[in-house]
């Protein structure tokens, strides 16, 4: 309680400060993108995509207490709507992203209405079945492009950016901008009336309802916004691989996003980078380890899975609320003692 008031207080004091932080961070990313090589820029774009997707899950799970095992399906909806809008309507890039957000949000609203009636394992089961079932729809309708999917080409970077401006840097810029805007906007939502009602529901649903919060509506809204963000992430994913196809949204993606959310700490948006970074970096770290210590194929192929799983279990066991929340708790405790 104390903490929330504290944060709100700070926010009121420095609404402008927050905005300038985001702008500053954006400028930092911009400068960074000129310093690093093309692979890192590409990975940066993937990272930004993960940031949006994980933020979407954090909103859903950490703030409104709903579980989604099928977030990959929502990403797929976003990716496909963006690609269809681009290919059939020749929509400008930013419009395709907007369309992805809106279409997925609408799908999320429908799903969220059903989801608000379900809880815990029932919702988990439904979202899991959705993640398994949805991609195979692509093979039922020709316009979805079947197994090989659809092309999604956001186009070349504007010529005004210079000759040595690579495609991936362009992706990175788009993805980073999308991520920055999403996180900024999401933070504002979380500080609004809606954010407060989600937190109240998370704490105690019965008490929140007594206080006049409509649990069903509130959860559906969370599901809708979360879906919209997932749709954006899906469009970003489609951009980085320039295509959408059913196999780009496997069940393992849904699980990976959940892993990322847990590693970030589902209760705080500010840890979102941690999870995204882990998802991007773990395979590389695993490869480095197995290159150094072993030549066995079994080790090389299974080490990334082993590392991610072990990390996930450790985080859930040791810092269940996430590293950021943990640090905050420790800091608060210290502060309490020094007082």
């Amino acid at each position, binding site marked *: 309680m104390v903490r929330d008031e504290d944060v709100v207080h700070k926010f009121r004091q420095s609404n402008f400060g927050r905005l300038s932080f985001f702008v500053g961070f954006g400028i930092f990313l911009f400068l960074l993108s000129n310093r690093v*090589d093309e692979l890192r820029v590409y990975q940066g774009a993937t990272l930004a995509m993960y940031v949006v997707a994980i933020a979407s899950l954090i909103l859903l799970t950490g703030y409104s207490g709903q579980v989604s095992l099928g977030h990959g399906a929502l990403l797929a909806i976003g990716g496909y709507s963006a690609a269809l809008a681009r290919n059939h309507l020749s929509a400008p890039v930013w419009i395709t992203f907007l369309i992805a957000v809106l279409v997925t949000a609408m799908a999320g609203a429908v799903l969220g209405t059903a989801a608000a009636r379900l809880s815990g394992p029932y919702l988990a089961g439904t979202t899991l079945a959705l993640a398994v079932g949805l991609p195979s729809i692509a093979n039922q309708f020709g316009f979805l492009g079947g197994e090989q*999917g659809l*092309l999604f080409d956001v186009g070349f970077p504007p*010529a005004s950016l210079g*000759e040595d401006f690579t495609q991936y840097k362009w992706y990175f810029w788009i993805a980073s901008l999308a991520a920055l805007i999403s996180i900024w906007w999401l933070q504002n939502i979380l500080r609004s009336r809606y954010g407060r009602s989600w937190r109240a529901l998370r704490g105690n649903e019965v008490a929140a309802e007594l206080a006049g919060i409509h649990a069903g509506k509130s959860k559906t809204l969370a599901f809708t916004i979360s879906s919209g963000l997932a749709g954006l992430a899906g469009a970003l994913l489609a951009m980085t691989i320039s*295509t959408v*196809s059913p196999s780009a949204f496997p069940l*393992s993606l849904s699980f990976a996003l959940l892993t990322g959310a847990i590693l970030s700490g589902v209760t705080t948006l500010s840890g979102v980078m941690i999870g995204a970074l882990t998802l991007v970096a773990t395979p590389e770290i695993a490869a480095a380890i197995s290159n150094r210590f072993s030549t066995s194929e079994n080790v090389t192929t299974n080490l990334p*899975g082993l590392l991610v799983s072990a990390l996930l279990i450790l985080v859930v066991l040791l810092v269940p609320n996430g590293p950021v929340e943990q640090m905050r708790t420790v800091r608060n405790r210290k502060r309490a003692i020094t007082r």
Partner: protein
Amino acid sequence: MIGINRRRLLVASAVLATSGLAISTVPAQAFSPRSEVGVTAKTIKLGVTIPMTGAASPGYNKLPSAMKAYFDYVNANGGVKGRKITLVVKDDQYVPTLAVAKTNELILKDKVFALLAPLGTANVKAVAASVNPGRRGVPTLFVNTGYSGFANKKAYPTTFTLLPSYIVEAKIIAQYLKENFADKKIGLLYQDDDFGDDALAGFKEAGLNFAVKVPYASGSQGLSGVPATWIQKLSTGGAEVVVLFGVSSATGAALGTAAVMKYAPKWILGSVGGDATTIKALGVPAGVLYNATGASFVPATTDTTDEYIKLFQTINAKYNNNAVFDNNVLVGMNTAFLTVQAIAAAGANPTRKALIAAIEKKGASFASAALTPLMYSATSHVGYSGYWFGTYGPTGDLKPNGGTYSVYTTDSGTGAVVKSTYKRPAMPANGLPAN
């Protein structure tokens, strides 16, 4: 050094691309007269992304070690023009996102000379669109999928396919069925995605009609009860001859379940799902395959009278931990064998451009274990284009019908199916291409 060169190369490609030139065969030597990316005086580095883990990995995950085994064999015998070949393997789990990420690592971090044998239509397509090896001038050799689209040189300028396309295969199977089972009711099991769609297109082109067509969703073959529904539909449809045009796990599931339901039509196995060793590894008893018909473009893996099989089995024993010698191992080694020839043909200081040119110019005459010709030319990036038919023996060995391999060839378009007169070039001494 290399970093700067590569950067300039990319700049140049971007410029070319933005100015509307679709094909970029950037003269890399212009910037780097001494050595190409991934090539040193002593080594050549190649890369492959392939499903090593996950549901799609069984079978395919044997390819990299087979390729490595052949490269090790060549390296032990002096390498290619003194250069030893290394192969960087990345696991893409059959997921396009990962295929793109890993291919980027191969090109940008590991700085490989060329990409080898990528797999999966969606993966190759995503890599082509996002990483765009075509624009970067990175050769993608011997794509390991039968999707016909990748042979389109305009869209995929640096890509060479290897397997006969699914359309080719379907046309040849249709011809075989018309010749041998004209009066029978024919059934088809196919995967309900592009793989199956290509096959359907091929059968349609050949004018073959099926009494029963059973589609299955990719992945559903592993679900208890699903294969039984196929067999039920095929048997109620009265199919006397059944074409199994799916992946190995689907073939295995169909054959195993048919045995349960005592349904015994004449089975015709497509090449993708027709490798006896893989099917047996799935737990299907060899006896179930007995008398089924199979199609292949390489010699039977058990045919030790074949000089390639003999050599590859020796290499397999020495450099591949004596793994089970199946079609995956055979195709893997054959791919490596072709790769070595291509690099050798690219000259004393191989460049990416020279590699592509060498395959276009000399690819059709490369030695290869396959019994069908390679169709590479300046205008075509199509690899093999034919099949022979055989019958599985009691232990699951595929033996050519009539004792000799009679190969049929055709193209992915409207071309007729013809009996091939191709004479396979003799294997170079010890399977080591002349340097």
